[in-house]
């Protein structure tokens, strides 16, 4: 199949707001389109989404395929799958990327199956690499709870499709002076579309500052043993303006909110500073912060594996070192 060298991004909107992960994915698409000398296009589906199309242009989309209809306000699985698949068949993009959040992961596989092409799941990176003398798209995927990295490429079918994890790419800087083409596409519901209908969508706000996107993350493990310890960790986080994450045992004990679990079952973060406190450093956990710029680990056990995956290790009891750190960092 010959393609038109477009790199597409599904720009998800919820309640008239573009999702952050979609904008990050657009950032990745801009990078890839430069590598293949192509163009970036966004596919935007919603009700009254014209203003969002302009916003996508300001973020760097050179084209926006806009499908607007009152029935498409919320995610509609069959309708969205059909719309995107038909656009792909008509315009034949080279690549199509989705943010790997829950709705993206519901939609992307269905589209890939309908157009019969390969899809790679929650990639931590996507790059053009030379394999067998040919430049090819390669996805990096953390496997087996982060202990392994699997690299996956595509056969000759197009588009190459992928879902990109939240935090895996940076959101581009918006620039209002950018120009782009907005292509409006008509929508007519079919009987097929109506076999599945979203009746209601309830969005909730995060219960605590989200760890994804935070510049500094303080993360606690099972070494936290009391409410007082929790307060101590929070105090350190407040001094640093950090978000608070934690390990699975810390989550199970409800010391950190479910949404801020760090690791293979939770979030992957890439802050400039990650401070791990009282967590032993299991691979399931450590894979969650391997993209952090600088890692400080605090644990009382000198043998703890966390000291193998940190830049600065502090062997100390958290009840002693954390208050001292709060004092020392307060004055900066």
């Amino acid at each position: 199949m010959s393609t038109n060298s477009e790199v597409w991004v599904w720009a998800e909107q919820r309640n008239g707001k573009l999702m952050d992960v979609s904008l990050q994915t657009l950032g990745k698409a801009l990078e890839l389109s430069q590598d293949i000398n192509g163009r970036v296009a966004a596919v935007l589906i919603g009700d009254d989404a014209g203003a969002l199309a302009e916003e996508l242009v300001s973020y760097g989309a050179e084209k926006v395929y806009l499908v607007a209809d009152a029935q498409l306000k919320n995610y509609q699985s069959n309708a969205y799958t059909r719309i995107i698949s038909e656009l792909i068949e008509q315009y034949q993009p080279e690549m199509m990327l989705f943010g790997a959040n829950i709705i993206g992961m519901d939609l992307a596989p269905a589209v890939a199956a309908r157009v019969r092409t390969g899809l790679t799941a929650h990639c931590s990176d996507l790059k053009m690499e030379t394999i067998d003398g040919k430049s090819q798209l390669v996805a990096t995927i953390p496997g087996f709870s982060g202990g392994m990295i699997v690299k996956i490429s595509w056969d000759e079918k197009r588009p190459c499709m992928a879902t990109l994890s939240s935090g895996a790419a940076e959101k581009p800087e918006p620039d209002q002076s950018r120009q782009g083409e907005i292509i409006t596409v008509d929508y007519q519901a079919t009987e097929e579309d109506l076999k599945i209908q979203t009746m209601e969508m309830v969005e909730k706000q995060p219960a605590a500052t989200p760890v994804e996107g935070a510049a500094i993350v303080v993360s606690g493990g099972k070494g936290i043993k009391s409410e007082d310890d929790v307060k101590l960790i929070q105090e350190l986080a407040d001094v640093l303006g950090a978000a608070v994450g934690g390990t699975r045992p810390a989550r199970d004990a409800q010391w950190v909110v479910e949404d801020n679990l760090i690791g293979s079952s939770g979030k992957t973060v890439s802050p400039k500073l990650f401070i791990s406190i009282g967590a032993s450093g299991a691979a399931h956990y450590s894979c969650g912060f391997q993209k952090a710029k600088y890692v400080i680990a605090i644990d009382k056990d000198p043998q703890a594996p966390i000291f193998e995956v940190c830049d600065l290790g502090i062997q100390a009891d958290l009840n002693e070192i954390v208050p001292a750190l709060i004092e020392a960092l307060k004055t900066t």
Partner: protein
Amino acid sequence: MALKIAVCIKQISDPEYFSQITLDPVTGSIQRDKVPAILNPLDENALEEGLRIKEKYEGSKLTVVTMGPPPAREVLDWGLALGADEAVFLSDRAFAGADTLATAYTLAEYMGKMGNPDIIICGNMTEDGATGQVAPQLAELLNIPHVTSVSEVEFIDEATIVAKQNIEYGGYLKVQVQLPALIAVVKEINEVRDVTAEGLMDAFDKDFTTLGAAELEADPDLIGNAGSPTKVVGTFKQEIDRQKEILSGSVQELAQKVREKLSEANIL
């Protein structure tokens, strides 16, 4: 109202042992023969939900289905012991090396040609491949609707369900779906039951069917490695390159040291 229910289950490498997975130094392929296998945890919830639907609607029949190598039949025996009526084992060398599309195609060949279920229940994601792609792709290839991340299902009538689809931060979608349809469930949908001695005994008398590519009349170009549009081009052990400067001593000194390091690294 009697329903035909199919539950897709998969045998996976036990995640407790993932740190023991190694790479063959010569071929670079993943070695996991020494790693024990278990039933994918969310597939227990899928099976539990299927059993609850079956128990609610008299005359319903529940089939457990897996595609996998010979040892994977164990998970089907387990499913029968828990209360499934019959097991279907899709096993053939030609199915090996399948990516999610080829896996979904193989499952769809069985479902479409022989199973014809009213409802298919999957886990939302496995803990080894962990793509979460098989369920929506299976539904798509059967041309039926699907809902992933399902934490509640309610039957409105014999042809309609309403599913609660969990989204980020505790939000959700209420989705109305016409049967036949597929749902992929998350852990909070139910508490799974334990197998009983009686269940184990009964399992011996239940139908167990093994089907290969020929019996399914599957297109050889669409199964296994040949039918997989994604190709693994390399596998690496995760390497984390860090400075690993480990300090101990008086906490005041340590705290000052942290402060110095952070300003040196231009973080504060």
